[in-house]
């Protein structure tokens, strides 16, 4: 079998073109600014990407199931808030590792709970995922603002710095966390009953029900797991920014959607893989850091994200059209 066919079979047909695009983007920025290919920049990118990456994983599976999770950012921040609350209870900057573990558990519980509620309403009541996650988003934002009175919560123990800014064997800790979870996601989607059900019900939920798949349980689990990984993202954000604010990372919602679609996830559900999404994330991080380095205004970057998303959808449309024309001609 040709090498290309083997790569396509193993990693998905979207991966090769994306890797190509990744190399292209690296080349462009390396030329555009001498600051790009520095260890400072590479390091900075390696530290920044994981939060976006975790949130993207949280968005990816709901999209695969034919839905959407608009509440990921506020779930993450509210989970971070739970962590902060526990830490502060145990002395704030003086809190010990035990308190941190407890806090992390609390954060994950919060994330799981909010995800479970959403999943339950979507699965058992049949409400539309966009609406449910929108309502949850409003609620969590409100709850967070109520608890924090709109301000920052800070004052965390020093050892959290190792999580947020530390290196293990030269690799940033957040990146290790992300790579681990990305691998877990890959396993979950490819090698578990749950992952299989996600794809099937994303394609055709009725037929899945008819064949005995437990669609309601799967849907609930999808959003619960999404909530858990949001919590981990929240913990990471708390460690990186050394504070928790309800609105942290608001702008990332769009980027997670963008990363999924750029990475080949079908907007209607049923198809998509982890590896191309990770490559897409790398591309987006490079774009963000690169634009920053060449002095582009942050707001301009926001506009660029939007244009990029439109561009990606346009290209997918064009490719789909070209493919059907080819099939039609044969």
């Amino acid at each position, binding site marked *: 079998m040709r090498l290309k066919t083997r790569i396509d079979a193993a990693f998905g047909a979207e991966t090769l073109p994306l890797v190509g695009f990744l190399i292209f983007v690296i080349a462009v920025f390396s030329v555009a600014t001498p600051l790009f290919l520095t260890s400072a920049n590479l390091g900075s990118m390696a530290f920044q990407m994981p939060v976006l990456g975790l949130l993207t994983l949280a968005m990816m599976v709901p999209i695969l199931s034919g839905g959407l999770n608009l509440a990921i950012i506020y779930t993450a921040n509210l989970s971070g808030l739970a962590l902060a609350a526990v830490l502060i209870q145990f002395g704030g900057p003086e809190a010990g590792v035990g308190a941190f573990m407890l806090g992390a558990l609390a954060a994950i519980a919060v994330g799981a709970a909010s995800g479970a509620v959403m999943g339950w309403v979507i699965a058992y009541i049949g409400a539309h995922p966009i609406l449910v996650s929108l309502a949850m988003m409003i609620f969590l934002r409100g709850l967070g603002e109520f608890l924090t009175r709109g301000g920052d919560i800070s004052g965390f123990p020093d050892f959290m710095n190792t999580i947020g800014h530390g290196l293990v064997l030269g690799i940033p800790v957040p990146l290790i966390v992300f790579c681990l979870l990305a691998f877990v996601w890959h*396993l979950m989607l490819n090698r578990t009953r749950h992952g*299989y059900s996600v794809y*099937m019900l994303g394609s055709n939920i009725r*037929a899945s029900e008819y*064949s*005995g798949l437990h669609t309601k349980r799967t849907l609930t689990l999808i959003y619960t797991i999404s909530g858990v990984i949001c919590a981990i993202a929240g913990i990471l954000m708390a460690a990186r920014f050394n504070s928790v604010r309800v609105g942290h990372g608001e702008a990332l919602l769009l980027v997670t959607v963008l990363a999924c679609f750029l990475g080949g996830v079908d907007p209607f559900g*049923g198809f998509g893989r982890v590896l191309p999404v990770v490559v897409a994330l790398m591309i987006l991080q490079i774009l963000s850091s690169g634009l920053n380095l060449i002095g582009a205004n942050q707001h301009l970057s926001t506009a660029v994200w939007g244009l990029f998303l439109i561009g990606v959808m346009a290209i997918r449309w064009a490719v789909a059209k070209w493919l059907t024309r080819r099939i039609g001609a044969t």
Partner: protein
Amino acid sequence: MTEHSLALRLSGVSKTFGGVRALNAVDFEVRPGEVHCLAGENGCGKSTLIKIVTGVYAPDPGSTIEVFGEVQTQTNPRKSRAQGIAVIWQDLALFPHMTVAENIGFDEMVGGCPRLISRRSVRARAADVLNRLGVVLDLDMPLGALPIAQRQIVAIARALMGEARLVFMDEPTASLTQSETDGLLEVVRTLSAQGVAIVFVSHRLAEVLDISERVTVVRDGTLVGVFPTEGMTQARLGELMTGATLQSEVSARDQSTAAPVLELQDLTRAGEFEEVSLTIRKGEILGLTGLIGAGRTELAHAIIGMSRLNSGKMFLDGQMIQPASIRDAIKLGIAYVSEDRLSLGLIQPQSIADNTVMAVIDRLEDHTGLLNPAKSSSLVKKWITDLAIKTGNPSDPVSTLSGGNQQRVVLAKWLATEPKLLILDSPTVGVDVGARAGIFRIVRQLAEQGLAILLISDEITEVLYNADRVLHMAHGRITEEVNPSETSVEELEAKIYA
């Protein structure tokens, strides 16, 4: 007033797509007020014919089309509707959240400049139309709240509001019960009496014979002939449609000494079936047939736990069972191959392999709790071989397979659950003749290996020649049991259509 002698006259109509001749010099005539059937297998050209008449496609040069006496040179859907031709596709193309009256009056909302509407006058005219049909419906009910049979009436009313004089209906009785079918036929007869011609398009033998006066049979784009349905048999019609002599050998065996697998005692579900009792033994194929809508599919749904019973008991291998869901049924060892292969039996965009393992996915895990790809691919390979599924690559989407091969994948999926009882509901709908024989060969083999099989079908020949015993179900009740070796197709058909 001049009466057109024919509502529709097609003469020498051909249509070529690329290099393929979809229609070959077909003649087709419909008289005003007639109930006519256009019959043929899937892909024979029926839909193409309708699309040519309504102007979606243009016919090849040399074709003549006359609509109510007027020669038609160029047409489009809007003109065709203005001429009085309406098409009711199987999905009805209605709007579930709009009311009955709004649905009936919708076609006037399209075309021309945006303008004011008088809701009251639309409603009044809709009421008129329903009157003409002799039907009473709540005009202000949202359409989605109505059962399918009533939605069909609304679709017909909509066509009538557009002053249709010729209505095409695509497989209208597919999801109707028997009394609903009767209701539909009442409406059709009323229309017919008012001079509106109805053309049913179908490939279902029972439907064709039940409802029309004349049938035009088309095969592979060519006209086979026009026949009165009075006196026509399913067997003959099937032969005309497929061009092959259908299997005519009874293969019934006596399984009365085998252990009973499924026993039903007086199953009743109000409005669907009443006091149904039957036994299926190991290795036996029990056929269940009757007029459309006699309650057979409803019975199957109750057996697999999709709907609840009002009374009665079910036993599997002697144990009483009360499945409350399809998952329960699978665990018990009951497998149900539904009639709707396209949207319920298979997930078309997903791969052949994924479709095959769907019902047994929880058995493919290894000790780590992860799915074992080796187990799954060997399972898929086994079934592809055992059922002789013609495919290139199991990771291709199942939509790339032919109808017959797709049906084999559905069978594979259910057989993989190692069921004790297999229920087949109209298993050869949409499958070519050649492929049908292959599927029944598999079914026979399964029975010989000890599987108990319930074969539900409209087609009398299919049931008579493949089952060991046949039950006739009418109006929700089992009316009699028939031994295929002791009767003939004609006899059974006479009883069913009596």
